[in-house]
Structure formats: C-alpha cells, structure tokens
C-alpha cells in the first residue's frame, strides 16, 4: 500500500516538474514584459511601458504583420492543396502513387538549414530572389507535407461505404465530397492547418535565408533585435504571441472533440 502511494506521489511530482520545465521560462518572460526594469531586476514593479513602446516600434510591428500574413496564406494554401492531394491519394490508383507518397516524408526530416540553402540557390536561379513572396513559397513547401500526412491519416479511418451510401442516395461526386468526405477529414485538415500555421509562424531558418532587410518575418526580426541589444519589447511581443497561440490551440482542441466523435 505504502509503495503505491509513494509511486503515485512520484508520478504527480513528475507531472508538475514536466509542466514547470515547459512553462516556467514562458511565465518569467511574460512577467518581465510587465516589469519596469529592462534588465530583469527585482523587485517586480508593474508597468505597461514596454507594450506602449512596442506599439511605436514599426519594424517589429511590420515584421509581426508579415509573419501573420504569411502564416495565414501558407495555412490556406496548404489546407486546400493538402486536402485535395490527400483525397486524390485516397481515391485514385495511378502510376507512381507509392513513390509519390514516399516522397512526402523526406522534406519533414531534411534539416531546414539545408532546405533553406537549397531554396535560396534555387530561387536566385529562377529569378524569384528573396523577399516575402520567396518566404511564402518556402513556407508552403515546408508545411504542405504535414497537412497531407495528417489528413491522409484521418482518411485511413474513413469507411468507404459512406461514400457509396451517399452515391446510392443520388449524390453526385461533388455532393459526396462536400457533405460526407470533407466533414469526416475536417479534424485532420484543421490539425494539419494548425501544423502549417505553426511551421510558418515559427519558421526562422528558411525565413532568415530568404528575407531582405525590409521584408522579413517576426522570428528573424527578433533575432536581429536581440543581436543589436535586448529590449523588453521582445518580451511583450512574445507574450502577445503566446496568448494568441494558446487561445488558438484551445479552440482547436474543442474542434477535435467535436470531430472525433463517431
């Protein structure tokens, strides 16, 4: 009995340590974004000064907008192309299908540094060069496999009789896809979309290679700012991003519950 209790207690301790490991740095950063001292000095004195000055920092704000814009467009493109691709891979048999499916995985494993270098060379070669458009193309290429893999995994659990049942009731291909198949893979598409958003929004390496001084994303801008000298504005912008992404995550979790029921 006693050992069980000790084990249970150790288990709880382990969970709390894990959560602390994950969240303490984030919480400290969030707190420091509200601290007067820019050098992490205590005692803690409340201020919103850094948020106000963040509002004045045009470079940081424009980089944030760039990041959001690119992440949203990347997500939309990847969701549309990715669900269409996973449907095609599910429905049709064609030559080279297995090969194509196998080709989806290596980009996930290839280090971004190498992908970034390759993209930089390629984009210069074909005349696209660097800038926001190049970053967008890069992000789509990086994120697309995630959406296809996640949506395909969801389709593996789809019962083909559902499409047959819909057809037997007079539904054409479009109605079958829209009303039966897509609703089924929606949780997979949403999860894949979230991945795509995260891959794009968090992307540093590829963005760094493809950005120019005026046309850059938030992670690259933060990196440049830190090199020049750290300011609590970085804490402020990071805190905002954390709050927004956590809200997004919780929302998605709700979606998952909705779509996961059979």
């Amino acid at each position, binding site marked *: 009995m006693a050992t069980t209790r000790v084990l249970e207690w150790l288990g709880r301790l382990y969970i709390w340590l894990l959560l602390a490991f994950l969240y303490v740095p984030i919480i400290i950063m969030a707190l420091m974004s509200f601290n007067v001292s820019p050098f992490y000095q205590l005692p803690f004195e409340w201020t919103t000064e850094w948020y106000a000055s963040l509002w004045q920092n045009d470079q940081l704000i424009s980089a944030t907008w760039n990041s959001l814009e690119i992440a949203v467009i990347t997500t939309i493109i990847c969701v549309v192309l990715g669900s269409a691709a996973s449907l095609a891979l599910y429905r049709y048999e064609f030559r080279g299908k297995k090969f194509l499916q196998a080709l989806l995985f290596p980009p996930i494993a290839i280090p971004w540094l190498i992908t970034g270098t390759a993209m930089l060379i390629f984009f210069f070669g074909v005349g696209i060069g660097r800038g926001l458009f190049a970053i967008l193309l890069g992000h789509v290429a990086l994120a697309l496999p995630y959406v296809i893999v996640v949506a395909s995994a969801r389709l593996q659990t789809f019962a083909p009789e*559902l499409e*047959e049942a819909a057809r*037997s009731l007079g539904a054409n291909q479009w109605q079958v896809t829209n009303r039966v198949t897509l609703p089924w893979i929606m949780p997979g598409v949403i999860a894949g979309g979230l991945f795509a958003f995260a891959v794009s929004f968090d992307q540093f390496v590829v963005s760094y290679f493809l950005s120019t001084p005026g046309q850059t994303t938030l992670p690259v801008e933060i990196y440049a700012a830190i090199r020049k000298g750290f300011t609590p504005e970085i804490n402020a912008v990071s805190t905002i991003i954390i709050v927004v992404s956590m809200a997004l995550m919780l929302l998605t979790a709700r979606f998952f519950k909705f779509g996961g029921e059979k």
Partner: protein
Amino acid sequence: MAGVQVSNVSRSFGAHKALDDVSIDFADGGFYALLGPSGSGKTTLLRQIAGFDFPDSGRIAIGGESVERVPVEKRRIGMVFQNYALFPNMSVADNVAFGLSVRGEPKAVIAAEVQGALDLVQLGKLGGRRPHQLSGGQRQRVALARAIITKPRVLLLDEPLGALDKALRVGMQIELKRIQREIGITTIFVTHDQEEALTMSDRVGILRDGKLVQEGPPEEIYNRPKSEFAATFLGDANIFRGESTGNGIRLPDGTAIFAGSGANLAPGAKAICAVRPERIRIFTDAAAPDTANANVLRGEVSKRIFAGNSSTYFVERGGQMLKVIVQNTGVDKLAEGQEVVLRWSPESTVLMAAS
C-alpha cells in the same frame, strides 16, 4: 417500383471469375434472397445491380430499362449496408433526409417525408440523435428509412442483419418483412444465413463460385434441391452415393434407395440421393413391412444431441454417419450403441446426378 432482370452477367477481377454468366429475373414487388458462401459472388452481383461496379458482359435492366452502364447515383436504388454506413457527422433526421436533400427538395417537404419514414421504422422521436447514440437495431432502422425515403425502384440489402445479435435479428427479420410488404418494393438481399433466406424471402437464389446453382421459392429449393451443394448448403441433408436405377440408386453394397423425385438419370449412371434428417423415422426393431416408408436401413446409434424440442441422432451405417432429427415427444430416448432401423419414404428422397 420495378422488377430487375439480370441476363448473362459476367464479371472478372483479374483471373478470378466473380460472376460467370448469371441470369436471374427478380419479379416486381418480390422479396429475393441471394444466398451463398463467402466468395460465391453474391455481393458482387448485388453491387452490379446497385451500379457500384459494371459487368464485363451481359445486361441488367430495372423496370425494363437497361442500366448496366448507368452509375449508381442515377439508378434510383436504395441500399442498406452491412455496417449501416450512417453519416457520423449528421443527425438521424439529416441522415434520412440526405437523399431528398441532394435532389434539392424544399425543406418543408423533406421534414414531412423524414418524419413519415422515421415513423415507418418506429423511430419517430429519435430524429435529433446522432448515429453513435443509437443501438445496433436502431441504426439498422435508420439505414432502412434513409434507403426508402427516395422511393427507389429497388431495395438492396447487403447482409443487413449480420451485425445484430440473434434475438434482435429475428425481430428485425419480421420488421423488415412488414415494411417491405407495406411499401411493396422489390427487395434483393444478400445473406450467408440460410435460415434468414428461408424465413424471409419469396424466392432464393443460391450462388457458388460465381454461378447461379439454383433459384426458386424456398420450399422448392429445400424439398427439391437439384445438386448436392444446394441440398447441403440450404439445410442439412444425408447424401447417399451409388448407381442410378432410374427411380433411385443402388448403394455399393447392393441396398436400393428409392427416390420419389429428381433428375431423370439413365440406369447405371453415377448418382446421389438426398434425404433431410427430419424426414427419417427411427425404430428400435424391424416391425412389419412399411410400404409408405419403403427405404429401410439398419444402423447403430453412435451419438445423441439433445436440443430441447428435438434430438439429433447420429446413426452409423456401413461406414457412413447418418443424421436423424426426432421431435421431442417425451417417449423415445435411444441409447448410444443401440441397434436401430431407419425408414423414410421415396417422396422424401431426391435423386440427382453425382457432382
């Protein structure tokens, strides 16, 4: 509503002949069972009629109109799948409404029709539920309501009761039959359960290796099977092998077995006789000659299985194990090892060519 004619339909998958020159006429308003072991082609045939797959050759007509190249969504059929195939993302009412909704019927019409269909399957109050909140039997009814709401010309059922437990299955058999009579729809259902085929259908078609072995009313197939396969697949049968005598066979040991019906076979040809276990009477002594039960064999009780309302005796005779089913009348209990005499009438015996 309409009848279905399948004429000389063949379908191969690679080297495998799933359907081999099958012709069946499904009468308008009839209840038809396609019976066969797995791999016999019964589901392939149903899918050809539904239009999920097209035949390599042959003709399929619904209501006199050739449909063998018409895709399923244009055939106006209703289908119930083995696993129900209810749309998990829709409520029960939306599932039932699907067929009318894709046609673009007005909402008010759909609502009224859905209620009517749900009432017909006695689920009138469950329209708001989700499929996962229903029991197996209820899902089955929803699948049926969804299939018939579009007023299809034919109702196709693929092992519709296979996923239900025994008690529920018997209830659903009666229910399905009632609904079918009520709307008078031509119904074709695939099953591997011979009892289901016998109790529910007006006609049965037995398939084996892609070929139609025999078809007709259940009584006819049961009482007058045309092949050993038909005799043993639909019900139980004792099979005797020997040489034809014209009106029966002669067993290798010289004993004659008289058959009252069956094939016309030239004397001397290899032939078999089949008799149902419940047609054989069992006696403990050789009483006076019994002209009605002209077939007589002596044997020894080797095993008895008590099944409540009846007992099954396994009687050994000349190296062959014969099965005899005796109704429980409360008197005749035979011991294992006991010498017995088996008698049955030629009318209970069917002569057929050896396969």
